[in-house]
């Protein structure tokens, strides 16, 4: 029953003052029998009122605005979390029965949302791989772990080669990326064999003896739905089951449903993003240091009405948007 202390700091700095920023944060760990939040302190520049609600996927989401002019915005979350190890699914049930059960789920809420493999150019290729990796006698959880290993072994963990905007096609060509990309591919593979798969964002917590990939930033992995068991966390970046070393923040269909911090503001399009996540056991001191965004993909942070860039293009964009509004 490990207790973790997590400190997650996100900081945006702008070369010139910006204003009217509206933000959304998904930084509240999930509460359930395997994960308990003892304490959370949230500090945000300007001390805005953070309004929270539960979204469609059951995540707690906070929103806030910061309208005054500012040149930096820091969101700091300090957490104390206790996790409990969850027993793994047994493999004693007949596999055929489990696959049958999965078929029934495909027309049910919420599973329907986690079963649509998105289309990309390499889908045929991936389908072939999925077919060869899977053997008839396997249970869904065995298949899921096999796919996890496949991603781990066939994709290179390289920071900075992908961004939020990198498409699946590009990732597929690169055969490389960070945890978000690994999780993304795994969800597609699982969905191709009709296993509901969702994307998870959260933190990975250092094992006292060796380090894991994905530390120092927010981490991402996948969950597969196993009949008679529930959602099983699988971390393709570290080729392991995501259990009591993984602290879950949010689940969704993809990265966009779970992005920890996103926002829009008015002003300069330039900004610098720094993210630091440090994790320690409750009984030890720890230090975090800022990392530039290479370790994790920059969360969605966009300027609206970005005039300084090129007024003409801005104007044409506005013209186009205004014209394309459907007036039914």
């Amino acid at each position, binding site marked *: 029953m490990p207790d973790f202390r997590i400190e997650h700091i996100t900081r945006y700095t702008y070369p010139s003052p910006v204003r009217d920023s509206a933000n*959304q944060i998904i930084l509240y760990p999930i509460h359930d029998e395997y994960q308990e939040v003892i304490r959370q302190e949230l500090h945000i520049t300007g001390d805005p009122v953070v309004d929270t609600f539960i979204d*469609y996927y059951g995540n707690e989401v906070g929103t806030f*605005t910061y309208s005054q002019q500012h040149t930096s915005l820091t969101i700091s979350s300090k957490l104390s979390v206790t996790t409990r190890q969850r027993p793994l699914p047994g493999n004693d049930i007949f596999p055929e029965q489990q696959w049958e059960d999965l078929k029934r789920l495909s027309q049910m809420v919420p599973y329907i949302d986690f079963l649509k493999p998105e289309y990309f150019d390499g889908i045929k290729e991936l389908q072939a791989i999925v077919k060869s990796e899977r053997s008839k006698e396997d249970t869904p959880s065995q298949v899921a772990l096999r796919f996890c290993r496949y991603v781990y072994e066939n994709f290179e963990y390289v920071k900075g080669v992908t961004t939020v905007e990198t498409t699946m096609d590009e990732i597929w060509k690169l055969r490389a990326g960070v945890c978000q990309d690994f999780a993304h591919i795994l969800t597609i593979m699982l969905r191709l064999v009709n296993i509901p798969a969702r994307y998870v964002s959260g933190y990975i917590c250092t094992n006292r003896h060796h380090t894991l990939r994905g530390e120092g930033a927010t981490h991402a992995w996948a969950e597969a739905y196993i009949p008679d068991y529930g959602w099983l966390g699988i971390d393709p970046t570290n080729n392991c089951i995501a259990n009591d070393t993984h602290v879950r923040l949010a689940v969704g269909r993809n990265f966009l449903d779970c992005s920890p911090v996103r926002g*829009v503001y008015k002003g300069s399009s330039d900004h610098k993003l720094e993210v630091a996540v440090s994790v320690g056991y409750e009984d030890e001191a720890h230090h975090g240091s800022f990392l530039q965004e290479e370790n994790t993909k920059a969360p969605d942070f966009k300027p609206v009405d970005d005039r300084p860039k090129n007024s003409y293009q801005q104007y044409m*964009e506005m013209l186009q948007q205004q*014209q394309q*509004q459907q*007036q*039914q």
Partner: protein
Amino acid sequence: MQESAYFKEYHPISGVWDEMYGDAGIRAHYTKVIEYLSRESSDDLTRKEELAKRLFMSQGITFTVYSSGEGIEKIFPFDIIPRIITADEWSFVEKGIKQRLRALNLFLKDIYDNQFIVKDGIVPIDIIYSCPHFLREMYKLQVPYNIYVHIAGIDLIRDHDGTFYVLEDNLRTPSGVSYMLENREITKRLFPDLLPQCGVRSVMEYPSILYKNLLSLSPRQISNPNIVLLSPGIYNSAYFEHTTLARLMGVELVEGRDLVVKDQKVYMKTTVGLQQVDVIYRRVDDEYLDPLVFNPSSILGVAGIMGAYRKGNVAIVNAIGNGVADDKAIYIYVPEMIKYYLGEEPLLKNVPTYQLGNEDERQYVFANINKMVVKKTNESGGYGMLMGHAASEEETEKYKKEILKAPRNFIAQPTISLSAAPCYIQGALHPRRIDLRPYALCGPDGIEIVPGGLTRVALKEGSLVVNSSQGGGSKDTWVLA
């Protein structure tokens, strides 16, 4: 009855319901107008036509067409001969639309809450969850009085025997109501005294009913809440309508950049600081409304507005997420919805519709494509359509390929022979195809439909497409008392 020269040339199209001409000659409800017109020479009528054009132009009732970077202002063609609807026909249409809207509203409430209709297998879950306008952000979100569709523009057409059919339900940002109002104003000028003589019901109440409904939605119980009309801006084709409605209701016309969200409340930026906004009648699409939640590159929206909406601090009209109810693939299930929610038989019929996502229906449609109209489920305004009987083989093949890429996004309907009404074209009356869009307003007191609407007309001979983008025009629409 005396018939002047331009009537002799009137030949109803065979096999088509003619609004003016029946088996026994001119229908009773058209006789007074015909008598009036018979006293006018064709020169008189041509002069009236010119007067109408001039009035539209000088009042700036125009829409802008953009080509090669330059905007050209055009008037929406107006045909001077009114389209007339009898009291009986209207009462049926009115009941039918109210029934349909009640069901659609309940459907939206249900689909964003308990989803009973899906659990009971009436509407397939797939079709809902694959609809891009089914917004998960709306799930369990409380809207005032559970009203989602405040303004509806349901398109009706009449088949060869005069039966009314619903062609599509426009539940997001239905437009054209300003033409209903302006057309009537012009008719008053063109045919003095004729409206009262014929007993034509007034449509002028529309802005005040809409205003009353908007007012009732204000979350703040204050005497003078701020109601605004949110327009995409001057480059939108319906900008004229936005200014007209804002003026007639006396509400502020705003653009996204005029608004800002602070602590879950929406404010407008004024010269004396921020003022809280209570009700927004928006003419901006869902996807552009909040760059924080939807399309991040939108410059027409207001970042954070979804949060204010969720908290109930601002009312948005029409509600967000209505697109799931007027998706053309979901349209197929509206008659079932009426039975399911209301326990009633639908009054207004649906046009038979094939969902191309279903393999067998798709094959049937492909085999009979020259008798079909194929449409994209999420487009309106006559864009992206294939008129099977008129398309070349090449066009058809190209379109089929398009369909196969995403069959869920297409439906097909057998070509319906729209009814025809007389139009004054080059000095004589000729039958042209028409449809009808009444405007329904839902408020806490129920559904009200002003007696009238927009009659769109396909001015090109033989054309079945009435959309303004495709050479359509409009007529004043008379509902008789």
